[in-house]
């Protein structure tokens, strides 16, 4: 049992890492990866919401009538998103302002509903917890990787610390919308090269 739980956790870190292997949740991936700080903040929020919603959905999976399960999942997810929203406003207000509407938009992030429907509604609580944590951490890693590239080239900094020194001319294409698309596309391409044939 422990072994299976570990497996569910680890698969989120590589085999099914969103948004590369599981092409879901692209909008926040593009929008919040201007800086590593934003990416980590978003990642934490997703880990919390995904883990909690997976556990709750899995715990009540036999009580929900089939026809309204999606509506119930959405209520569960939206509840945890609102909790994150309130807590972030209370404790990390500047980060909350930076992430803006992308915090409430976690509700419609396909990863959450996708995991609730495809995994948590069919598996036990422990496995769902492992799955939520794994996918959440994988997503955070992916966000941070993309954000590192964009921040280093776009601002010349990493987590607000200068990398190239003052003479560096920032390549601001990277932190604008087009740069986000191209950068993610190329990262996806690199990931595909590693895929087993």
């Amino acid at each position, binding site marked *: 049992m422990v072994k299976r739980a570990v497996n569910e956790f680890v698969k989120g870190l590589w085999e099914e890492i969103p948004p590369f292997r599981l092409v879901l949740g692209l*909008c926040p991936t593009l929008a919040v990866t201007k800086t590593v700080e934003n990416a980590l903040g978003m990642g934490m929020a997703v880990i919390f919401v995904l883990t909690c919603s997976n556990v709750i959905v899995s715990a009540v999976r036999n009580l929900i009538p089939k026809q309204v399960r999606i509506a119930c999942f*959405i209520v569960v997810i939206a509840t945890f998103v609102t909790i994150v929203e309130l807590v972030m406003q209370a404790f990390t207000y500047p980060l909350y302002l930076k992430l803006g509407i992308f915090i409430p*938009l976690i509700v419609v992030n396909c990863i959450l509903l996708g995991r609730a429907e495809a995994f948590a509604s069919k598996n036990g609580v422990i496995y769902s917890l492992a799955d939520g944590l794994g996918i959440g951490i994988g997503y955070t890693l992916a966000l941070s990787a993309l954000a590192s590239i964009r921040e280093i080239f776009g601002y010349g900094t990493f987590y607000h610390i200068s990398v190239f020194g003052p003479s560096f001319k920032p390549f601001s294409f990277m932190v604008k919308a087009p740069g986000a*698309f191209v950068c993610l596309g190329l990262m996806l391409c690199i990931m595909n090269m590693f895929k087993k044939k």
Partner: protein
Amino acid sequence: MESYIVLVISCIFVNNILLMQYLGNCPFLGVSKRMETAVGMAMAVIFVLVMAGAVTWVVNYYILKPYDLEYLRTLSFILVIASLVQLVEMFLKKNIPALYAGLGIYLPLITTNCAVLGVCLINMKEEYDFIHTLVSSFSYAAGFGLALVLFAAIRERILLARVPKPLQDTSIGLVTAGMLSLAFFGFKGMIH
């Protein structure tokens, strides 16, 4: 009148929801492989978004605000949108089967299209009045449709080209979207 024109241009081109605000990318990449599906999705989004904009405006200013319940905004908006989509689907199926045949399969996808919830939240953040909300919802949706149709047209051509294996599918799609976004950047100076 002037404020409406500025709003329309700003929502369709300058702040294009897909290419500038990064919203609604999942359907953008998902249904853009063929022109017909792209047009169908664009119509469905325009249809739902204008209704959702109107309903969420009423919910916000007549239910949430008077009772100081604005922290329930996310929860109530998503439920309103989800039930609205269901209602529209049932209504079309029964009364206008021709339209349902065209839009039907896209409607369930719209609930989790972040462009819909996103635009409703933007409308509240900008504190638009009712008419401005309608205009902005329509224009954002039209911008979504425009980008989607343009993108689908490009993608049909890419199908004919020889793309390196690792770059195929989503990957080349994202790079193409980046180029399209770069083109939309040209509109940036239009409105101050």
